[in-house]
């Protein structure tokens, strides 16, 4: 059931991606509402698939406060990240109307979801001490929220750099009319970066606790933790520079891009060599074993 729902959600995301890309080529007015509706429909189906997975776990999922699973699949984590990013985008679009970001988010969502759900990934064991950990739930939840916020900030930063380049070069491209103002991109990107930083801080703090529970070391020397700390430090520097020196615009956008890429290093590290396999436990708890 959960698998069917998530596959339908994936189809809705793919259709939304197609519509947003069509809008980039030919900006018909009906395309944006259509793309938005499909994304929303996809998100609802996607959330329903999580719900179905929980219900299929016979009360052994969220109801048990811990997550009761002893293994996880890497793809499940990316599925959750995709859902969080789409939800974040829809909130942004509702508040600020940035359809051009949808043309980035929808295809990326599909690109993340396809390997997450269609490609087989083997299960990895979760340390027994963590299978019922509330800290793990907070760690994974804040990591997903922070990553989604920073993914959107990353998308907006790329938009900023593209738009700024066109404005500076005085050669407006075909998409120029559809790009929002630099001020809006900068402001929204800044808010997302701050939220991303806050969630990332929570994720690192709780991750440290989880790590100590599972491996005995709060900050094990592993690529995942190293990249996370680097990304966090970069975002901290960005926020300090913005608040103290007033940095904004291009240099902030470049820092956000760098911060997000470092954060992706964390996920690469997680998938490559999970020392305690903690991060995905929550998803496994939600989605069950399937």
């Amino acid at each position, binding site marked *: 059931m959960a698998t069917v729902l998530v596959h339908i959600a994936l189809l809705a995301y793919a259709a939304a991606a197609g519509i947003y890309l069509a809008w980039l080529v030919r900006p018909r007015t009906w395309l944006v509402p259509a793309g938005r509706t499909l994304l929303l429909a996809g998100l609802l189906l996607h959330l329903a698939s999580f719900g179905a997975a929980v219900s299929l776990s016979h009360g052994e999922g969220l109801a048990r406060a811990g997550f009761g699973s002893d293994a996880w699949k890497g793809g499940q984590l990316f599925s959750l990240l995709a859902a969080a990013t789409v939800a974040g985008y829809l909130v942004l679009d509702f508040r600020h109307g940035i359809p051009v970001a949808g043309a980035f988010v929808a295809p990326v969502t599909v690109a993340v979801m396809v390997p997450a759900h269609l490609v087989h990934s083997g299960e990895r064991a979760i340390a027994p001490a963590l299978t019922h950990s509330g800290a793990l739930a907070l760690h994974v939840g804040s990591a997903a929220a922070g990553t989604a916020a920073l993914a959107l900030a990353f998308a907006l930063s790329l938009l900023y750099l593209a738009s700024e380049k066109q404005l500076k070069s005085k050669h*407006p491209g075909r998409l120029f009319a559809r790009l929002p103002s630099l*001020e809006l991109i900068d402001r929204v990107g800044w808010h997302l970066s701050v939220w991303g930083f806050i969630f990332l801080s929570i994720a690192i703090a709780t991750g440290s606790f989880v790590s100590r529970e599972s491996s005995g070391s709060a900050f094990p020397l592993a690529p995942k933790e190293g990249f996370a700390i680097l990304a966090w430090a970069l975002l901290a520097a960005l926020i300090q520079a913005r608040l103290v020196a007033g*940095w904004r615009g291009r240099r902030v956008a470049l820092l956000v891009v760098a911060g997000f890429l470092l954060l992706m290093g964390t996920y690469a590290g997680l998938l490559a060599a999970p020392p305690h396999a903690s991060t995905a436990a929550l998803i496994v708890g939600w989605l069950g074993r399937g």
Partner: protein
Amino acid sequence: MSVPVLVCVGLSHKQVPIGVREQIAVSSEQLADRLARLKAIAGVREAMLLSTCNRLEVFAIADARTVADDVLRDLGPLAAQHAVTRFEDEALLHLFRVTASLDSMVVGEAQIQGQVKEAYARAQEAGVCGPAFARALSAALSAAKRVRTETAIARGAVSVSSIAVRMAQKVLGDLSGRAVLLVGAGDMAQLAARELHACGVSSLLVANRSSAAAEALAKDVSGIAVSLLELPALLERADVVLCSTASQQPIVTRDLVSRVIRARRYRPLFLIDLALPRNIDPAVNQLENAYVYDLDDLERVAAQNRGLREQEVQRAEAIVLEEITAYARAKQERAAVPVLARLRAHAQALADAEVERTLAVLAPLSERQQKSVRAMAAAIVNKLLHGPTSRLRGEQGGPLADAAAELFGIPRDADTEAPVERSEASDAEGGERPAERVAAPADVLPLTRRQ
């Protein structure tokens, strides 16, 4: 007498970038002197110099095509390198297209018509313009009016000022609550300032070298007059800066803006340079969070706009061609009518002379008999000229008029006889459309210095 030739010598934004145009621009103060120089060129009968931010062009009615070389030399070596020379039909088409705003940086903008009228008024003041030019310009302005009223070319963001405002919005977003600094009192900057004001900007600061001018302009655009000496502080405060002074040197330099940007804590600053020569150092655009748009940059954006309205532009071009055809027809009619009048006068004079000679050799005739002889001579003249008259009127001049003038040895020069032709044409055609288009220069062009 030689046949006059319409000549157009000049260049525009299509031939040269702003860097060249700012070096050859003719300021309002220099215009009288330049017109006097044009007048002094041998073979120039009438001339008008159109100098705007985007073009420097001389339209002249000359004795021969070779006069264009002298006009070209008069523009100076830099302009001469890039200038385009057009003659007759091509020059006329260019005059019509320029006036109808089809050759403008922003196609469809209305400002060019005021600039053409201004140029004509200045040429009249200088005594360089005559009736022939007045007719051509009148027809060009009629065409421009039709283009504006019969096509949608003027709709949308078509003025340079509105495009400048749009670009400011692209950088700054909603302009309500923003501060705008207007440096100088150029027409385009004033237009842009008004558009920004309409967008809800919170304060409009007006700086000028002359405080009286600043106050007058501030009053005009609902702004606040400030001193130009405070420019660094004003740049820290403003979000949009509009420069349009007659300064020959940049007044907003890279160093100045570099300091200002830091003081602004990197808040973006959008600078619009509508002056020629430019008031803002182009290197300012290299600075982070500073965006400089000059006239050429706005042209690039305008080019997109033009592409969107291509269909309307085609309709406008068709109207211009129609109007040129009507103008050419009216000109031919004017050319034909004096030939007829002179032919008739010539024949009547011959007949009268023969009648007098005949009456002198005949026995004394009564008053009634003399009247009959004169009537017979007039009837012969009328019957002889009836065919040629009908043909000439039907053909509206052209080769037949030339042939008639040649056969009967009648001098023919439409333009030198223009004031006479005009009334004759009107009489002959009973006020039909082409004739209506031709009026006395004073009627045709109630050209004021500023519309």
